[in-house]
C-alpha cells in the first residue's frame, strides 16, 4: 500500500483550517509540505433494502422520518443517486472500493461459508483514510467475505480499526455477531441491533473525537427479517418500524456529534444499498431489489456537511455509489492509487456548485455482474433503455415522477434502418 504525502502532524494542524477551505469551495486542497488540508470526519450511514420512497423527504405517505428530513433541509438531497448494484454484496463493494463490483470480483451476493471476498489487493476508503491518520470503524453489516471461512476477509484486514456487526445478511444462518474478532452472540437479538450499532458508533466517536474519524455504519435493517424495538409504532407496519427506528438513532448520532463539538467538521451521509425487497417503497419508480429498473437501483441519498454542502438543495444530476470513494478522498486531498481503475468520480465540486458532473453515463451492474448502462440525463439523445431515464423537472421546480418508459430501442433501430 502506498502512503500519502500527508503526515500525521499535517493532519492535526489542518483541522482548524478545514472549515475555511471548504467554504472557499475548493474540492482539492493543495498538499504541499505543511500546508493545511481538509480533514473532515466522515459518517456514512448505509441501510439495507431501504427504498427510494421510504423516507418522508422522498415522499413516503406513511413512514415518518423527521430526523432524516431535517438532514435534507440542512444539507443536500439527491434525487438521482444510484446504488452500486440492485443487491447487497456488489453494492457494498462499490461503496468501499469505488469500483464496479465485477471489477473487484464481488459481482454476486455472498453466503455463509463462501470463500470469495474482498481481496487484500483492493484498497477501501478505510485504508486510504487510515493511512492518512483517520480512526476507522465498520459498525453493522459487512457482507464482503465470511471471516470464519477466510480470516483475511475480516473488516479489520481492510482498513478498519474497529468492527462490530454481522458478517453478512440477517436472514442467513449461522448468524454470528462480532465485536472486533470475537463472536459475542450467535444469533443476536435482531430487534436490538439498530440500537446496539448506534451505541457502538457513539462509543467510537467519543473515543476518537479529537482526531479525524471515518465511521461506516451499515445498519442491518430494514432487511428481512424485520426486527425493531419500535415495533407497532409505524403506520407502515414492521418495515416502517425499522426505518423509523433508524431515523431516531440517526438523530442520537447527530446529537452526539454536536455534543462533542465535531458536528461542524463532520460530513454525514445517509443512503441505502439497493431498492426495497418484499416490502418497502420505491416511490413512483418501477422495479424493486434485484432488478435494474429504477426502483431497484435508485436510492435515497442525503448529505449534511455544515459549511460545506449548500443547505436545502435538491441535487438532480445522477451520481453513483462508486463516487463516494473518490469524492471523500478528494475532500481530504488524498490521491487515489495510480495502479488501478477507479470507476467513480469526484462529485464534490459539481455538487457544491449545483452543476452536473462531467461524465454523462453511469453504469449499474446486474446481479450477474453484467453492466446495464443507464443513460441518466434528459440530454441524452433520444435513446432510452429499459433501465430508465431520470425524472424531469417542471418549471415550478418540482420533480415529475419518472415513469417506466416504453422500450424505444427497437423503434430506434428500425427507424435508423428505415432511413438509411
Amino acid at each position, binding site marked *: 500500500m502506498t502512503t500519502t504525502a500527508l503526515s500525521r502532524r499535517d493532519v492535526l494542524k489542518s483541522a482548524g483550517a478545514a472549515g475555511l477551505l471548504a467554504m472557499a469551495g475548493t474540492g482539492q486542497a493543495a498538499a504541499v509540505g505543511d500546508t493545511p488540508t481538509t480533514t473532515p470526519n466522515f459518517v456514512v450511514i448505509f441501510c439495507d433494502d431501504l*427504498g427510494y*420512497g421510504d423516507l418522508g423527504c422522498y415522499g413516503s*405517505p*406513511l*413512514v415518518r422520518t423527521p430526523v432524516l428530513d431535517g438532514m435534507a433541509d440542512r444539507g443536500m438531497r439527491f434525487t438521482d443517486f444510484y446504488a452500486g448494484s440492485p443487491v447487497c454484496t456488489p453494492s457494498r463493494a462499490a461503496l468501499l472500493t469505488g469500483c464496479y463490483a465485477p471489477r473487484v470480483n464481488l459481482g454476486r451476493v455472498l453466503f455463509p461459508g463462501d470463500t470469495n471476498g474482498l481481496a487484500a489487493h483492493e484498497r477501501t476508503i478505510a485504508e486510504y483514510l487510515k493511512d492518512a491518520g483517520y480512526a476507522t470503524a465498520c459498525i453493522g453489516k459487512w457482507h464482503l467475505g465470511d471471516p470464519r471461512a477466510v480470516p483475511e476477509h475480516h473488516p479489520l484486514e481492510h482498513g478498519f480499526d474497529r468492527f462490530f456487526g454481522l458478517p453478512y445478511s440477517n436472514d442467513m444462518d449461522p448468524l454470528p455477531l462480532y465485536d472486533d474478532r470475537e463472536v459475542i452472540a450467535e444469533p443476536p437479538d435482531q430487534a436490538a441491533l439498530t440500537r446496539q450499532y448506534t451505541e457502538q458508533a457513539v462509543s467510537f466517536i467519543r473515543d476518537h473525537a479529537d482526531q479525524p474519524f471515518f465511521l461506516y455504519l451499515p445498519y442491518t435493517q430494514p432487511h*428481512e*427479517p424485520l426486527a425493531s424495538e419500535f*415495533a*407497532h409504532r409505524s*403506520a*407502515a*407496519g*414492521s*418495515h*416502517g418500524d425499522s426505518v423509523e427506528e433508524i431515523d431516531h438513532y440517526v438523530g442520537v448520532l447527530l446529537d452526539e456529534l454536536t455534543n462533542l463539538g465535531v458536528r461542524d467538521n463532520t460530513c454525514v451521509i445517509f443512503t441505502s444499498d439497493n431498492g*426495497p425487497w*418484499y*416490502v*418497502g*417503497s*420505491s416511490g*413512483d419508480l*418501477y422495479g424493486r431489489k434485484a432488478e435494474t429498473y429504477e426502483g431497484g437501483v435508485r436510492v435515497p441519498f442525503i448529505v449534511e456537511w455544515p459549511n460545506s454542502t449548500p443547505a436545502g438543495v435538491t441535487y438532480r444530476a445522477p451520481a453513483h455509489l462508486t463516487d463516494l470513494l473518490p469524492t471523500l478522498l478528494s475532500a481530504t486531498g488524498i490521491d487515489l492509487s495510480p495502479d488501478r481503475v477507479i470507476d467513480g468520480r469526484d462529485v464534490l465540486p459539481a455538487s457544491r456548485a449545483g452543476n452536473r458532473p462531467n461524465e454523462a453515463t453511469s453504469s449499474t451492474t446486474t446481479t450477474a455482474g453484467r453492466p446495464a448502462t443507464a443513460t441518466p440525463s434528459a440530454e441524452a439523445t433520444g435513446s432510452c433503455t429499459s433501465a430508465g431515464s431520470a425524472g424531469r423537472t417542471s418549471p415550478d421546480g418540482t420533480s415529475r*415522477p419518472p*415513469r*417506466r418508459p*416504453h*422500450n*424505444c*430501442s*427497437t*423503434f430506434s433501430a*428500425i*427507424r435508423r434502418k*428505415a432511413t438509411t
Partner: protein
Amino acid sequence: MRGLGASPNIVLVVADDLGIGDIGAYGGRLIRTPNMDLLATQGVRCESMYAAAATDTPARAGMLVGRFGARYNLPASVSADSAVGLPLDAVTVARLLRQTGYVTGLFGQWRLGARAGQHPLDHGFDRFAGTLYGTDVAPLTWYEGKVAVETEFDPAFAARRITQNAMDFVSEHREAAGARGEGRPFFAVLSHLAPHAPFRAEPRFFGTSRAGLYGDVVEQLDHYLGLLVRHLREARHGRRTLIIFTSDNGPRYEGRTQARRGRKPEVFDGGVRVPFLATWTNGGRNMVDRVPRSLLDLTPSLCALAGAGTPTGLDGADMSPLLAGHYAPERGPVFLFYNEYLNAMRSGRWKLHVAYGSQSAYSRVYMPQLFDTEADFRENYNVANLHPDVVSRLQARLDRTAADVAAEAAARSEKEMA
C-alpha cells in the same frame, strides 16, 4: 323461445396484456387512445376491475364461464403442444345466450384448447374466425370455423381481420333481421391478440407512436376499436347494443400499471387490474365505479342483461345494474389465482397476499402480507402486524375458497385419469 324484445346486442372486446395505465381515460399520456377514451366518457368506467386470473387461459375461461379457471386444471397459457383445454361441461356465456335465442360469434384468439371438444364451436359459438393461440406462437394458423384457411397468418394484421370479421357478422345479422329489427340479438366477442408480446404492428402504424412498438400496437388496436364502434352505432338495429372493452389481465413486459406494484403474472395490483369500459350505442349515464370487481362477473351479468337464466355455482357476481346504468351493486371479495394457486384476495380496502408464484416454502417466508389499498395503493407496506384480526378473517375466507376450488380440480383430474 321467450320474448327477446328487450335483450340487447352485446359486443365484448378483449385486449391481451394491455396496460390499464396506457389508456388516456386511466391516466395515460404517452399513447393516443381516443376511441377508448370516448367509450370511457360515454358509459361506465370501472377503476377497480380485476382479471379473472393472472394469465391468459384461466383468465379467458373465467371471463367466458364465470368460474375460476383453476377449477378446470388449465395451464397458464395453452400452447401448441398441450392437450388441455376447456372441458365440455364448462358452460360458457355464449352457450347460455344462444340457448336464450342469441346468435353468437367469437373473432380472434381462443386460447382455450385445440383438441376435439375444445373448439369455440363446441362451446356455444355459432361463428368462429380466428386463431387458437396468440402472437407468441409461430407459425400461427387462421381458422374459419374449424377449417384452417391460412397457416402462416401474420398477427400484425390480426386487429384488422378480427374487426372486419366482427363488423361483417354484425352487418349480415342486421340484414337478416330486417328493417324493423326483428330477429335475434347477437353476442360477439372480439378477442384481440394485441398487445401481447412479441409486438406486431401493421407497416402503417410502425413507428408512429411515442411509446415504441408496444405503443404502435396499442394505437393500432384503438384505431380498429374506433371503426368497430362507429359501425355498431351506424348499424341501426332495432335493439340497442352494449359494447364492453377490457383486457384479459395486466401488462407484462411493457405497458403502464398506474404506478402499482407488479406486472403479469403477479397478483399484485399491477398484474391483475384491467381496464373496463361499458357503453351503450344509444347513450347512457357516465359512471365511474370504484368497487372491486372481477371479470368473472361477465357471465352472470350478461346473462342477466340478456334475460337468460344464470346457472348456479358461479364464482362471478351479477353487476348488470351497473352495466344497465342503474346503480353500482356491492360485491364480495375478489380472489386472485396464479394458475392453481390462490395467492391473494381483495376485500374492501384490504389486499391480502398469502403466497407468491407457485407457493414454494420460500415464497411464504414473509407472508402473509396485508396492504391497505387506500393508504398504500402501491402495496408497499405490510400492516399485518397492525391488523391481525383482519388477517385472520380474510385468510379464513381465502382458505375456504382455495379448498373448494382445489377439491373440484382434484375431482376433475381423477375423472380424467380414470
